[in-house]
């Protein structure tokens, strides 16, 4: 080990943060860029399934809430892109990797939002799962990532609560409305569990990420937390648990649960979800449609600078 590597590992072991200008192993930098940009892309692509319902929200209150939540996601994307850029990669490169499919985003966003209940289920389950992960990442070893996570967690709890509240209203409504809530829960529960990634034994990046303290808890431990916290929440809604194998295990102090359909997980990651193509195509289209705005900003600035130069002369 070189003295730089030793110094780096000493900081990691002492739970000190690594900051942008510190020396770091190339693999640490790469691993972080992969994880953080994937996280940023998820925030941005995640706006699409929910944005789908903004114009059709059932009341003005639900509409301003949803609008505000989607705006938050855009901001979270920015926090994470900025933090990723401190690792020496440009925004343009990150966006290009998303649009070419080289970079991934959370595969949950490749599922369609068929009903208003899905918007509630996303806030409650998808943001709920994300929060479990992000709370853990507040202690990640890379300073800018950690600070971004702290800020995001502060803002995110409203996302989960508004989703649960919307689903609670449906669950307490007419039998048809209750059925909508149950259907949304059934469709989003398993994909939400998949958000934590493959089992620890199968996870390609886990071991090194844990050693470097990029990740602080394993996929399976985080997933177990989410499974445990969700059981009583489903009971309060008065809905049926989608996992028929869910059972309290006194000895472990946790719920035992059924196995996830991993074929579905890998199939969606590899591009065969309902909406994979649509999500990326929409991102490219929205980006292209914004070209004139960016061009106008540049042109305006050039004009202003020319004027300034003229005045000086």
């Amino acid at each position, binding site marked *: 080990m070189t003295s730089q590597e030793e110094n780096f590992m000493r900081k990691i072991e002492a739970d000190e943060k690594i900051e942008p*200008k510190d020396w770091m192993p190339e693999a640490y930098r790469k691993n972080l860029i992969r994880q953080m940009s994937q996280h940023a892309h998820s925030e941005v692509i995640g706006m699409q399934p929910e944005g789908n319902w903004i114009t059709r929200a059932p009341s003005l209150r639900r509409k301003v809430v949803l609008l505000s939540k989607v705006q938050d996601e855009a901001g979270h994307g920015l926090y994470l892109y900025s933090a990723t850029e401190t690792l020496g990669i440009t925004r343009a490169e990150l966006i290009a990797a998303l649009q070419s499919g080289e970079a991934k985003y959370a595969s949950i966003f490749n599922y369609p939002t068929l009903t208003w209940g899905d918007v509630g289920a996303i806030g409650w389950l998808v943001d709920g799962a994300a929060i479990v992960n992000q709370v853990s990442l507040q202690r990640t070893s890379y300073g800018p990532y950690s600070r971004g996570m702290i*800020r995001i967690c502060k803002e995110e709890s409203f996302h989960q609560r508004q989703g649960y509240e919307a689903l609670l209203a449906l669950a307490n409504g007419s039998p048809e409305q209750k059925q909508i809530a149950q259907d949304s829960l059934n469709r989003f529960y398993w994909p939400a569990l998949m958000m934590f990634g493959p089992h620890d034994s199968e996870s390609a990046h886990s071991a090194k990420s844990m050693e470097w303290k990029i990740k602080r808890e394993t996929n399976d431990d985080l997933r177990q937390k989410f499974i445990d916290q969700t059981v009583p929440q489903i009971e309060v809604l008065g809905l049926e648990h989608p996992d028929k194998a869910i059972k309290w295990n006194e000895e472990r102090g946790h719920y035992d649960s059924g196995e996830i359909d991993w074929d579905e997980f890998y199939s969606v990651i590899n591009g065969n979800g309902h909406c994979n193509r649509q999500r990326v195509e929409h991102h490219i289209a929205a*980006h292209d449609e914004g070209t004139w705005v960016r061009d106008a900003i*540049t042109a305006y600035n050039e004009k202003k600078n020319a004027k300034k130069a003229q005045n000086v002369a």
Partner: protein
Amino acid sequence: MNTEKLELFEVFIRSKRGLDHKHIGSLHAEDHEQALEYARDCYTRRSEGVSIWVVKSNDICSSQEDDAECFYDPSDDKPYRHATYYVLPDPVNNM
């Protein structure tokens, strides 16, 4: 995205009168004016601040970690700069 033409700015926010401005993130913008507006839109959505600073990242000159020794070591052997260095009798020790 053609952010490569846009400059990177660091954003600092004073959360309350009487407190320091604190670094909270960065963003790309064309100029200071636009950076301020973006910062307001992005970082003060829940009344997090009463004042915003934006600074071009390129204008920040930072000390290097490798220089830490020659930068900070000289104060290591000057414990007399700390109040606890001075031993006083108990009756007056809350001074």
